[in-house]
């Protein structure tokens, strides 16, 4: 398994990250923006794991970072969705173009 070079693992993660950037800028639905954010977080997780595996195979630091990043991403998504549902209740819409007031 480990004989493939590192670059072959981090290039897919780079492409995933760029897709996340594109979606983050072009999307208008807030949940779609959240999905793009998940893509970016996930690509960073891949990088942590790959560098840990290839550079320090005897240690697990990168894996720990990925575990905690996954936990924090779950918490962040839950809160963001609570906020989005609340916004939907207030303005009946989750299009970011319609959200130009700080207080409803």
């Amino acid at each position: 398994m480990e004989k493939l070079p590192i670059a072959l693992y981090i290039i897919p993660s780079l492409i995933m990250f760029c897709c996340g950037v594109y979606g983050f800028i072009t999307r208008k639905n807030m949940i779609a923006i959240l999905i793009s954010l998940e893509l970016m977080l996930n690509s960073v997780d891949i990088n942590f794991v790959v560098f840990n595996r290839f550079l320090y195979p005897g240690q697990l630091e990168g894996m720990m970072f990925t575990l905690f990043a996954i936990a924090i991403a779950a918490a962040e998504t839950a809160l963001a969705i609570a906020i989005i549902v609340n916004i939907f209740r207030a303005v009946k819409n989750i299009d970011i173009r319609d959200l130009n007031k700080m207080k409803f």
Partner: protein
Amino acid sequence: MESVGSIVMYSIIVAAIIIFSILTVTTRRILRAATYLLFTLFATAGLYFMLDYEFLGAVQIAVYAGGIVVLVVFSILLTSKPGDTSSKLTSKKRVVGLAASVASLAVLGYAIASRCDFWSTFVKPSETGFDMHLLGSMLLGTGKYQYLLPFEAVSVLLLACIIGGVVIARKR
């Protein structure tokens, strides 16, 4: 020498990652975007399994695919009617998005391509495999390079997140 099976496996996983992450950000139906995100996360878990980190692949499937995607699908069904499509992109917005993503692709791709180290492999064959005992003692130990304090901090964070979610989303 690399076995043919693992190369085939690698190609399938990487093709799935690339195709589904592009589809995630380009499809106009939001529920399909969530489904493609699910496939991307599964392919990532497959990559972790390929790197012999079975525990991490299981966590990825359980938390991301089982938790986050279900949450996202619930909120999509709460906030949009089925069959809704997002409006067509204006060309200005698309140009801005493409410029940002191509710029980051160029900078990071140059960083990868210019390090010729990345094209060789580092892992030592004697140290392959993954020790579950090491993971357990790292996660629940208090010594150097051990992670009990962050572990407890994450548990407090999750509790705060539950309470915050309830407080934010409740009916007033």
